[in-house]
Structure formats: structure tokens, C-alpha cells
């Protein structure tokens, strides 16, 4: 499945500064694996050491938090947008 991934500022350094990249994956887990292969280090702050999702970076498929879909097993469709969203605190 061809998916657009929106990257927050803090992860763009892994993708040559791009705000959006294209990636493939039938599930979110596959997509993140493929992303990591293309852009090493990009999922370090998304995936915890136990392989699950960190709780301070949210992942959305379109406008829905994947915690309320299937977490890492969430199935993706062509044209979906996956957004990675870290907590930020600046003011």
C-alpha cells in the first residue's frame, strides 16, 4: 500500500529535511519497518525497546489515533496519510 507519511520537525533530520515522505506497508508495523530501512533512525523515538509504540509520540492514520484502530497491526490502504506526532511543550 502506498502511504504518505507526515513527519514532525524533530524527525525530518532523518529524511533529508522532508516534511512528507512516501512509504509502503500493508500494516503500520510494516510501514515503520520500511521507513526505518529507508531512513535509519527515524523510528527510534516512535517504537519503544519492547517493540511497542511510545506513549509520547502519537501515530495517526488519517485523523484517527492508531491506539483506537489496531495499534501496530492497523491495516493501511492506498492513499492513507500516516502522521507521527510528538508531544511538544514550547510556548
Amino acid at each position, binding site marked *: 500500500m502506498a502511504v504518505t507519511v*507526515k513527519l*514532525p*520537525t*524533530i524527525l525530518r533530520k532523518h529524511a533529508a529535511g522532508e*516534511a512528507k515522505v512516501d512509504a509502503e506497508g500493508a500494516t503500520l508495523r510494516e510501514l515503520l519497518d520500511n521507513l526505518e530501512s529507508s531512513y535509519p533512525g527515524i523510528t527510534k*523515538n516512535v517504537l519503544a525497546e519492547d517493540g511497542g509504540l*511510545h*506513549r*509520547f509520540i*502519537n501515530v*495517526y492514520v488519517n*485523523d*484517527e*489515533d492508531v*491506539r*483506537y484502530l489496531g495499534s501496530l497491526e492497523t491495516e493501511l490502504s492506498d492513499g492513507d496519510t500516516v*502522521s507521527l*506526532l*510528538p*508531544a*511538544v*511543550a*514550547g*510556548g
Partner: protein
Amino acid sequence: MTADRRPGAPFTEEQVQRYSRHIILPNIGGAGQRKLLDSSVLVIGAGGLGSPIAMYLAAAGIGRMGVIDFDRVDLSNLQRQILHTNDDIGRPKVESAVEHLRAINPTIEIVGHDTLLFSDNVMDIMQPYDVVIDGTDNFPVRYLVNDATQFLGKPLVYGSIYQFEGQATVFMPGQETPCYRCLFPAPPPPGTVPSCAEGGVFGVLPGVIGAIQATEAIKILTGEGQTLEKRLLLYDALHMDFQEVKIRWDADCPVCGKEPTITELIDYEAFCGVPARPD
């Protein structure tokens, strides 16, 4: 001239002129303006976000506004903190803020709180206000403010920024409505996110997010329109991209879930350029 601040008092001539563009506006009108004059907000932080929030809300005639900050004005603030001027460098931000807000609108009550927020003062400081607006710059205070507004049952208008990106939403009190911990249950561990100072911030960005927070506060207070409740607005200034994602109530939320595990306020270890709690 000091306006009559009793609830429901008739407008003075000065108020009719000052607020005329609101009073003739559908969805605000005289009744909406009266609500604003009879209401109170607490602005947490007199910095990048706090500046536009407090300036627009003072101009709009919020009857009583509290501004809290512990910091002093620094030259490096002036690139975005438009509430302060070159002459204010070195002054407590609250002192500078109160003076400039009174210059914008001398007919409302403005209260300065020159202090850090901790678990042992936040409830007393927040208690007298109808709506709390978060314009702070660090995770410990953001979690403290969320938890305190949940315990007190007060609406919280949230905004935060990093470099070119901003987020804004509204957390309303009540059953099965999300809070900040439903969105992000716990602060990131120190070292996993860049510190505020080293990240940098695009100067206009807090103007956009702060103006959105002021907008949401006015809608909560007047009951008009549709707020960002249950929606997180994401803004990317560099690409001029606005996006919305859903915020769901988390039944397992440690503060507002079915079986809360956090029932007291927590002072998180400071880690984002904020001094640790003085002993």
C-alpha cells in the same frame, strides 16, 4: 473611568464605544460582550503564546485576567514575545505584562502572579478563574495544569509550539471528555526531546497559535460556535499546512479515566530549561 464591574451591569458609554465592533457582531452582540465582561481567565505564561493570548483577551474585555510567570524579560524573548518591549529587559515578565495590558485596556481587572506553578499553589491560583489557558513552555507545568484543571472542573485551552509547528485544542471538564493525558499520558523522558532553548522557535508561530487559543477562550465564555474540543489542530508554518486529528477520551486515562491512578498533583522533575524546585 472605572467601569461598573458588577455582573450584568449596564454598559458605560465608554464600553459601548470600546466594544462596539463586538456588540454589533452576530454571535457576540451585547449579550456576548456582557458575558466576556463578567468572566475571568488565567493565562499561564507571559511569553510567546501568553503575549497574544493576553493582549487579545484584554482588548476583548475579559472582565478579570490573571497572568502568571516567574521569569524576567530577556533580549532573546523580544523576537516573539510581543507583550514586552526593549525597555522591559530585566523586569519581571508579570510586571511588564500587567503594565502593557492595562495600557491596552485600563477598564478591566488584571492580576499578576509572579511565581512558578507547583502542586502546592496551583489550585489556589486557578480557583478564582472560569477558564485556564496554557501558554507555558515546559512539560512539568503542562501536566500540572492539566491535572489541576481536571480536579477543579475547569476548561483548559491548550497550545504548544516547537520550531515551525504548533498544536492547539480545548479540554473541557466532564464525563468521558478527553484531557491532555488522554492525548499524551506522560511526559517524554528527559533527553528524548530537544530542550526549548536549543530547538529554536519561528517568531510568528506563537502569534498564530496564541490567537487561536484566545479565539477558543472567547467561544467557551460566550457559548458561541464550535470549539476545538475533541479535535487537535496541527499547524506547520513552514508549509502553511493545517491538519486536524481526533482526540478520544481514554477510559484508561490516569486522571480522567474510569479508574484514575493519579489523584494528587505531581511535580515532575524539571528538564526543559526550567529551574528545579527551589528548596
